[in-house]
């Protein structure tokens, strides 16, 4: 029997990937950010999941041009890092888990989620940076990944409520998968940031802190947030945080916070990380 044992929320700032790829993690600008990632790497190495269901958003890099799925799922054997305009990241090819991915497709579509199925998919920093944050710089993909891609770029994004419901359906789907499989689910993006317009550089630490707190204790408040709430208070690009609600929906109602990290700035962004274990 398969089981989701924990969820992880993290920012996926491209500059964090660049800092790792260029060996700058010990420079003063980056040092304290990366120090905060120590505990989660240790935790993940101990938990040793068989698969990560990695919910993220593509940044107009790897999806077919002109085509914007609300929710897409990668069912391939592997996912190559995308060239986002400055060459692909020097990270290993991401290993897929087609068996679990197709099981999710069947369960979720029959449950009324209108997924877009991607036989082949390249993955941008939205997926590769969380892998680097949590696994460091291994030579080979350290764990199988099922990518679930979410439109957060073009309004209307899915609502937070819909993302949470998708998470709940993923919980049910994994519970009906008959292979003995330990799953951790990631929700990535955010936290508060805005990287376009005269308001660029917006950071809202108070709002982020409340989001992290309520993710454990009061997710219903977050489920009720509107698109306007995110964009106004967490920055236009902070709306990526809806993706974390898929992760939260896939966990039990009762969860325990295992670790947390929050740092400003990573480039233009407040970088946050949280690990929640089912109880």
């Amino acid at each position, binding site marked *: 029997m398969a089981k989701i044992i924990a969820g992880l929320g993290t920012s996926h700032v*491209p*500059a964090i990937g660049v800092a790792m790829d260029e060996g700058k993690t010990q420079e003063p600008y980056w040092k304290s950010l990366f120090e905060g990632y120590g505990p989660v790497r240790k935790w993940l190495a101990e938990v040793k999941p068989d698969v990560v269901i990695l919910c993220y958003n593509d*940044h*107009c*890099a790897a999806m077919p*041009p*002109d085509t914007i799925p609300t929710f897409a799922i990668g069912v391939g054997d592997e996912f190559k890092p*995308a*060239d*986002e*305009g*400055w*060459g692909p990241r020097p990270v290993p090819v991401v290993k897929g888990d087609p068996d679990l991915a197709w099981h999710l497709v069947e369960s979720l579509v029959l449950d009324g989620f209108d997924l877009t199925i991607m036989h082949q998919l390249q993955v941008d920093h939205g997926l590769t940076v969380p892998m680097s944050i949590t696994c460091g710089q291994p030579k080979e993909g350290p764990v199988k990944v099922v990518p679930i891609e979410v439109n957060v*770029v*073009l*309004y209307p994004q899915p609502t937070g409520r819909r993302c949470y419901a998708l998470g709940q359906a993923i919980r049910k789907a994994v519970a009906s998968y008959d292979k003995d499989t330990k799953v951790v689910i990631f929700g990535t993006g955010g936290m*508060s940031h*805005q*990287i*376009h*317009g*005269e*308001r*660029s*550089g*917006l*950071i*809202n*630490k*108070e*709002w982020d802190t409340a989001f992290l707190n309520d993710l454990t204790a009061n997710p219903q408040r977050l489920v009720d947030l*509107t*698109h*306007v709430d995110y*964009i*106004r*208070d967490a920055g*236009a*690009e902070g709306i990526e945080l809806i993706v974390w609600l898929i992760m939260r929906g896939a966990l039990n109602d009762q969860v325990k916070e295992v670790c947390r990290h929050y740092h*400003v*700035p990573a*480039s*233009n962004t*407040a970088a946050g990380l949280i690990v929640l274990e089912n109880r």
Partner: protein
Amino acid sequence: MKTIKEQLEDIPGTYVFTKERSRLGLHLNLFCTSLLKAANREEFLRDEPAYLAKFPLTEEQRRAVLERDWIGMVRLGANIYHLSKLGGTDRKTFQYMAGCMTGMTQEDYRAMMLAGGRSIEGNRSKSEQKTGA
């Protein structure tokens, strides 16, 4: 009650990528998408006007690209994630592009971020800004 669109447009210094901007900027964004290929990046950098002529851009959009008028491109329908492909072609970071859009110097923008970023206070609503609240 304000519509969602009115609420989004009330946020200062913010150009939410709505259907209106998405339609306005479609070909500008498709131009950016073409830069995902290294060969296209090289071709573009060799002769920018010739490369741009392949895309049905408005004169204003063409000018904004050639001048790297980042905020101008956003106002003409470009999305920041598409623009990042043009930024990447120029070997410029998100922080560089964002800094340009604010009208601050790169040093001042970086310093603001190191000091905790732009405050939300006074930045929620255009009306809030007008009354100086």
